[in-house]
């Protein structure tokens, strides 16, 4: 803590980062520390409701997100969100409530508090690429990811719905590529960057997920990627945790490690495996990283 | 003996780079008949043309060959220069040694040899060229417009406004055509009569428009600029000049229950009638088939009550002959009916829709009359069968149209839009009703058209169902509509109170007969054919005859009006000069040799070949020969290639010229 932080954010990790995506949470906190960005976790945040809530009960979904936004307002700084699903829900809530007076009044009644909707909700990518800036990010890199071919996977909710997340171009985003290229990696162009992995069907209809996720892995492999980078714990779950199973079902071998963006960027800033939670990854990244002399 | 001058152009270096132009000039100079040959850097430049003109005078040249670029590029230029020097322009030919030689060959020797041969061929050709005087045809600056619908009205007004006299002929007792029957018009929903009647009045009041209603074309003779048209004026039984249009005769007429065609037979009219109140001229006509006076000789009430004494039972059909220079054909359309068609007809009806026997299955025009404020129901949508307001109304598009099996394979173009309009009119008039539309495609290319269609669905709550209807049948007082929704993939059944069919647009009955009188061509549906689908869309192949409106193919009002004005512009172009001048590349018949087999006439696409009787001094017929009307001939030469004895020759491309070139090889 020698230098003061250059930026301060409130932080909404979301349920997954406190459970299955612990390494995303860990690497995020460590990376931001290195970059001099302060993160203050929103105290007593609730689940945003994720897909299941808005799927069947929009009002509940909006109310949960609004409650979280209200909680976040109490912490200084824009709200940093790691999970793409949480990000999408929070942004959608802001958008819908700004558009519809009827819904806004209903939600205010449900959470029994007035809505301000002024605080900005930002995904980590936005903070790295825009707030911090790619130049400063590049300057922090001391172990460039030279030779590492990364397939950046956006999934659905980083850019969609259109006009809501405003993270990047909705059909041809480049923000992940820009960030990881600043860290010295090479990116591969590929076809399934934005195809759906099946997300929350992982519980109820794993067969669906396996089929969709396989198409994504297949496309990344065909494009010559060494690994996949994601910004969403749900996607990560399907791509990483189910990878072995998929290889079995389709009788193929992918062996594509699936990194969170903060893990890869963190690696480039010189953070060690223990601070990035690499050991939590199901598809072991060690052989790849050793081969590329990044470990 | 001809004194031919040959001029070889370098075209900068374009020709001289691969063709030894000096050698060409030298070689060609040796050919018999060539009196002068030279080469020059740019023949088409002013100094080049001056060189040409000077040589003609100094060398007393009789024929010219300019060897340069393609004649498609500069033939006009050099012929003009030659004319300026006092020679007939058709004594000048171009030899194409650029596009066909220097630009396509790299070997200078080969290209030079070829250039010499090309020029040599043209030298031989030009020897056989004859002086061809420019053809002039006098133009009568009066136009005939056939058909008094919106197309004819627009064309007539445009031509008359430009200062020319117009004869407007209409078959019905009043002008107005189908547009006068419509209630509202898409895509703006303004009332058809409101925009139509002022134009009709303009026609009636125009000092340069002579209006013949209740009249038909009997005979058309002559050619572009010089037509003689015989018009049959059917007996109206009412004197147009004395009738004041007071209407007392119509009130007093004891025959009152004659279905009015104008109202699609929903309303009734007397035997002496005007088809609709705003008729132009507002002169009644006696329907002799239904008039008691004409049937039994008794009655005569109308004549008795007529103040000015305009009713004239003795009137007979009469013929008038008008001389005109141009003809605009604007005979419009008729609607297909689902009724049973005569056996053997290429067009079939719809047995599956009851062949028109279900009273509440009506066509689009009938719906227009129902929706029209001046219509038989005063603008209320009511069922013809029992006068009830239909609460469930089904519209079906593409009836007849796009149905090869029914005999019509084309799209009628206007039905998608007018059906959308009908759903809106219905929704405005029957608030608690629901409109359904069965359709295959919604074809809405036109300014604000797609928006209009979407409005009928999104705002006026019409339910569009993609899929055709298989069958209609009466069940109690309902009509069961058996359709399908192909987007869902299930059968759909609706019990409707009324069904409106968007029936196909067809040419007017007798369109083929009129075409035969005019000598214009028509397609298998009897739509009139334009000279060129893209570049001459309002002209007929027969010179001096132009097309406007739906007689050429289905059209909506804006398109019709646009084409009518375009046809008027074409007429005005023709009338802009006192005489029609044209290139003298036309066929001529050598009458002495012609045996009158008329093979030439059979292959002429322009109807330029006529039959001409040759008589001796006593007037005895010696023989009948072909005659090519130079005002009509387009100069293709198909007649000459067809004539076995070559007694018809195309000036500018005579056999002598062609054989001379082949022999020059």
């Amino acid at each position, binding site marked *: 803590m020698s230098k003061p932080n250059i930026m301060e954010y409130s932080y909404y990790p979301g349920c997954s980062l406190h459970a299955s995506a612990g390494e995303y949470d860990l690497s995020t906190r460590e990376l931001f520390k290195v970059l001099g960005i302060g993160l203050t976790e929103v105290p007593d945040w609730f689940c945003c409701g994720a897909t299941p809530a808005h799927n069947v009960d929009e009002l509940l979904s909006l109310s949960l997100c609004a409650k979280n936004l209200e909680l976040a307002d109490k912490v200084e700084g824009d709200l940093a969100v790691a999970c793409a699903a949480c990000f999408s829900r929070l942004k959608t809530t802001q958008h819908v409530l700004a558009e519809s007076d009827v819904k806004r009044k209903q939600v205010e009644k449900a959470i029994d508090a007035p809505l301000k909707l002024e605080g900005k909700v930002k995904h980590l990518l936005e903070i790295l690429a825009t707030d911090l800036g790619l130049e400063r990010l590049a300057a922090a890199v001391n172990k460039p990811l030279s030779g590492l071919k990364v397939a950046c996977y956006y999934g659905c909710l980083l850019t969609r719905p259109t006009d809501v997340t405003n993270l990047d171009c909705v059909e041809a985003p480049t923000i992940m590529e820009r960030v990881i290229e600043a860290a010295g990696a090479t990116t591969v162009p590929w076809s399934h960057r934005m195809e759906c992995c099946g997300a929350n069907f992982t519980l109820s209809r794993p067969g669906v997920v396996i089929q969709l996720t396989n198409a994504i892995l297949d496309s990344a492999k065909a494009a010559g990627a060494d690994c996949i980078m994601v910004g969403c714990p749900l996607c990560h779950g399907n791509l990483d945790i189910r990878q072995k199973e998929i290889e079995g079902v389709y009788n193929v071998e992918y062996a594509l490690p699936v990194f969170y963006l903060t893990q890869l960027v963190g690696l480039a800033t010189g953070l060690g495996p223990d601070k990035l939670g690499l050991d939590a990854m199901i598809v072991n990244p060690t052989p790849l990283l050793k081969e590329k002399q990044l470990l | 003996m001809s004194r031919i001058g040959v001029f070889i152009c370098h075209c900068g270096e374009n020709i001289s780079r691969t063709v030894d132009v000096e050698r060409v000039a030298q070689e060609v100079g040796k050919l018999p008949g060539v009196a002068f040959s030279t080469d020059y850097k740019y023949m088409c430049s002013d100094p080049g043309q001056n060189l040409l003109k000077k040589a003609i005078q100094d060398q007393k040249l009789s024929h010219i060959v300019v060897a340069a670029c393609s004649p498609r590029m500069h033939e006009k230029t050099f012929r003009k220069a030659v004319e300026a020097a006092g020679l007939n322009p058709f004594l000048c030919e171009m030899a194409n040694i650029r596009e066909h030689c220097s630009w396509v060959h790299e070997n200078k020797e080969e290209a030079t040899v070829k250039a010499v041969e090309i020029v040599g061929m043209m030298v031989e050709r030009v020897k*056989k060229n004859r002086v061809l005087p420019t053809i002039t045809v006098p133009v009568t600056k009066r136009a005939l417009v056939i058909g008094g619908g919106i197309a004819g009205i627009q064309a007539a007004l445009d031509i008359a406004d430009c200062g020319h006299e117009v004869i407007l002929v209409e078959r019905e007792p009043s002008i107005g055509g189908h547009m006068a029957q419509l209630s509202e018009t898409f895509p703006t929903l303004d009332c058809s009569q409101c925009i139509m009647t002022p134009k009709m009045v303009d026609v009636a009041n125009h000092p340069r428009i002579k209006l013949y209603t209740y009249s038909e074309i009997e005979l058309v003779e002559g050619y572009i600029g010089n037509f003689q048209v015989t018009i049959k004026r059917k007996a109206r039984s009412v004197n147009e000049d004395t009738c004041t249009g007071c209407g007392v005769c119509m009130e007093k007429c004891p025959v009152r229950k004659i279905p009015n065609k104008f109202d699609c037979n929903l309303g009734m009219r007397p035997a002496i009638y005007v088809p609709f109140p705003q008729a132009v001229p507002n002169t009644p006509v006696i329907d002799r088939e239904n008039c008691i006076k004409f049937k039994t000789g008794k009655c005569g009430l109308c004549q008795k009550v007529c103040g000015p004494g305009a009713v004239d039972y003795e009137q007979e059909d009469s013929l008038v002959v008008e001389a005109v220079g141009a003809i605009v054909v604007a005979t419009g359309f008729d609607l297909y009916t689902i009724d049973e068609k005569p056996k053997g007809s290429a067009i079939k009806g719809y047995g599956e829709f009851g062949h028109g026997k279900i009273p509440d299955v009506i066509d689009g025009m009938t719906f227009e009359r129902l929706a029209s404020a001046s219509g038989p129901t005063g603008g209320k949508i009511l069922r013809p069968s029992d006068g009830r307001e239909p609460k469930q109304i089904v519209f079906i598009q593409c009836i007849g149209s796009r149905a090869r099996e029914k005999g019509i394979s084309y799209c009628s173009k206007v039905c998608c839009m007018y059906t959308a309009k009908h759903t809106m009119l219905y929704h405005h008039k029957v608030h608690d009703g629901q409109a359904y539309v069965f359709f295959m495609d919604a074809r809405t290319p036109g300014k604000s058209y797609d928006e209009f269609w979407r409005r009928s669905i999104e705002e006026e709550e019409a339910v569009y169902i993609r899929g055709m209807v298989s069958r209609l049948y009466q069940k109690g007082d309902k009509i069961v509509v058996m359709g399908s929704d192909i987007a869902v993939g299930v059968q759909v059944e609706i019990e409707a109170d009324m069904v409106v069919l968007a029936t196909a647009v067809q040419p007017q009955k007798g369109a083929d007969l009129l075409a035969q009188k005019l000598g214009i061509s028509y397609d298998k549906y009897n739509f009139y054919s334009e000279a060129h689908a893209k570049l001459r869309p309002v002209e007929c192949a027969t010179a001096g005859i132009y097309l406007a409106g739906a007689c050429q193919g289905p059209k909506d009002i804006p398109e019709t009006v646009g084409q009518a004005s375009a046809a008027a512009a074409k007429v005005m172009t023709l009338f802009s000069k006192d005489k029609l001048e044209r290139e003298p590349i036309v066929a001529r018949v050598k009458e*002495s*040799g*012609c*045996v*009158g*087999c*008329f*093979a030439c006439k*059979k*292959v002429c696409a322009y109807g330029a070949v006529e039959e001409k009787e040759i008589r001796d001094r006593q007037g005895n017929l010696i023989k*009948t020969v072909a005659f090519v009307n130079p005002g009509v001939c387009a100069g293709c030469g198909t007649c000459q290639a*067809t004539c*076995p*004895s*070559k*007694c018809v020759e195309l000036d500018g491309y005579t*056999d*002598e010229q*062609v*054989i*001379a070139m082949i022999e020059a090889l």
Partner: protein
Amino acid sequence: MTKPIDTSIYTAVTDAIRTEAQRILSEGQVSAIVGYAAARRKGSAQPIVISQPDDAAKLIFTPACVNNLAVYLTKAKKEIPKSGKIGIVVKGCDLKALSGLMGESQLKREDIYLIGVPCAGVLASTVQPATELTTDSIAPKCTECDAHLPTGCDFVPAQTPVAADLEKKYAAEITRLEALTPAERWAYWKEQFSKCIKCYACRQVCPFCFCEQCLCDRNKPQMVDTTPRPAGNTAWHIVRAMHLAGRCAGCAECERVCPMDIPLNLLNRKMAKELKELYDHEAGFEVLDKGPLNMFTEKDDQSFIK
């Protein structure tokens, strides 16, 4: 195997013709009748024009009545009265030529009184006129006849001809020639045309060669060499065949009159075969508005065009 062909009806046909001719001449329906009469040599026949009812008895119909009389109504009209309806005795093949001429405005139906003859065949020009009509002595054109009984005439005798089933001579020869190489065919025709003495008898006898000035006689320009040399002769026969394509009705008079025995009708039959295949056109009794080469359809074959 030579087999006789039944011509027994010809006597009855002759009688019927005579009766009808007598009737129409005496009633004044026609001013003259063109028909066949016996000629000097035994069994031979020659054209005759009669205008008196009494002369009706001169008319005959025998296997020697080969000539196509159509030509007497057009260019060989000298002996025929200028006014009034003309009667003419026509076999089926001749009637086709008349129909063609009507389609080409050379004749008007209302000016002619057609006496059709039921015909089982006529003699070849190569045999003596008194020869019995057999499968060998029959004219080659009759082997391909599909018009034994003319229709649409003003009068046809009631007899029905018995059509023999014959080997189609032209079709067989066309097939033989088509199987040859172009060079072999060229050699064949070169030899045939080299016999030509350019007497123009073929042109003279042809009902369709009615041009006042033949293209092949023209000097300005000279499209075809007019002297009787091989090049010009070949060109003449090609032009002739082309000008008759779609018009020739197959009377084979050209071939009959050729003093050098050039198989001229072979060219005409070949053209007819092509027109049948390409445009389904066959010369018939029907008067056509337009011949097959004066019209077109958009779907015409163009497989030969690149």
